[in-house]
């Protein structure tokens, strides 16, 4: 099935996934991970220019899908040992259902008649209550914080906090992935390239780094059979890697 889907038409990865499940007439409680993952990946691949901000969540979901898929491919016997392991898809299903619920709620909000669009209140303001109240604004905690924020921006401030922003760089992770490959003698399971407890950002950046390496033909992705694990392997001899090590961040388009 060829899919012509624009990422920007979707409010997020869950929205896109729901769409794919619906178009495939799949049972949401029994998602066919191989098929869905493949279609999902092909949709995000169509996006030549990934805006990292927008695409981060879509990539995170891609990594999640691949991960679930690979967990489902593991031999069952192994799993059974640690008492009845839950279906790897369970959390995803739950999230999809919850999301669908609020998506529908949002749609019903959109259909409600809105004040000043469909319904109007009286616009007449008697002279008696006009006077000086014109410049008054309705105020809540947000307005209070906002007012202070604006003032601080106008005024030279003596103290600046130093901002240490944890910047995860794709270039750095390209090297980490290469390093892991080298450690494992050039061949590693896809799910093993992530660190033990990756943060969300790490997951995205690692995934991006892998995509980069594949694009640069540094790394090959292999799957022995349709239901097999994904393997990554080095496509260049280890001693030629130096060419990549010196790459700076701006080689990649992620800003």
């Amino acid at each position, binding site marked *: 099935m060829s899919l012509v889907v624009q990422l920007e038409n979707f409010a997020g990865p869950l929205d896109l996934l729901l769409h794919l499940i619906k178009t495939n007439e799949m049972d949401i409680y029994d998602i066919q991970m191989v098929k869905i993952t493949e279609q999902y990946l092909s949709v995000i691949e169509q996006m030549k220019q990934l805006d990292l901000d927008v695409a981060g969540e879509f990539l995170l979901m891609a990594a999640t899908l691949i991960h679930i898929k690979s967990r489902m491919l593991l031999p069952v016997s192994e799993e059974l040992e640690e008492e009845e392991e839950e279906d790897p898809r369970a959390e995803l299903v739950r999230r999809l259902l919850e999301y669908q619920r609020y998506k529908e709620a949002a749609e019903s909000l959109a259909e409600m008649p809105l004040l000043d669009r469909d319904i109007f*209140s009286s616009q007449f303001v008697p002279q008696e209550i006009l006077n000086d109240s014109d410049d008054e604004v309705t105020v809540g905690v947000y307005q209070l914080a906002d007012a202070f924020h604006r003032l601080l921006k106008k005024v030279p401030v003596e103290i600046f906090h130093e901002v240490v922003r944890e910047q995860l760089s794709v270039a750095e992770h390209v090297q980490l992935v290469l390093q892991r490959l080298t450690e494992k003698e050039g061949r590693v399971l896809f*799910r093993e390239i992530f660190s033990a407890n990756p943060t969300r950002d790490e997951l995205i950046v690692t995934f991006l780094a892998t995509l980069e390496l594949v694009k640069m033909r540094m790394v090959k992705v292999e799957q022995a059979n349709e239901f097999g694990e994904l393997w990554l392997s080095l496509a260049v001899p280890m001693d030629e890697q130096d060419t990549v090590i010196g790459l700076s961040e701006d080689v990649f388009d992620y800003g």
Partner: protein
Amino acid sequence: MFLTMADLKQIVEAYIFAAETPLSLDRLAILLEKPRGDVRVIVEQLLQQYAQGESGFYLAEVAGGYQFRTDAELAPWLRKLNKERPFRFSQAALEALAIIAYRQPVTRAEIEYLRGVDSGGVIKSLLEKNLLRILGKKDIPGRPLMYGTSRQFLELFGLKDLQDLPTLKEFSALDSDIAEALPLEPGQEGETNA
């Protein structure tokens, strides 16, 4: 000055008509300097009177108060008045608004877990439109801000109160074993490698 019931009714009507926002019984009682019960009787009368009328507007119960509003079915005509730019909501904004409306108090992390996407910008623009309220901070590590909907939200959507929201569809078809296996844990999105 002695006021007859007819006088009072007239004053109540004028107040509701002239006020910028829906007037509650409490507020009317203060304005009229009359017991809340007396005010309620008058308002009930007005509600009935306008309910049967063939008038272009009616007395609506919104946001805990009363306000004259045009009938929803006249919307196609009234749109021609081309009033000040009405609210336009993106799908993202509506999703966030729905989550906040139904789950308040709710934190940004919870909204983002449910939506699967960063929602800071959307929350900010809803706050700027006065549709949200900051309800304090949640008593968990990091003390994140909790959000809820504002009175303006009720006014905008013509809701009496939060109970007046359309009922949320339950996914009752959910297999009980799946449901049990899945405690909703917002804020932990990085769990996929567990």
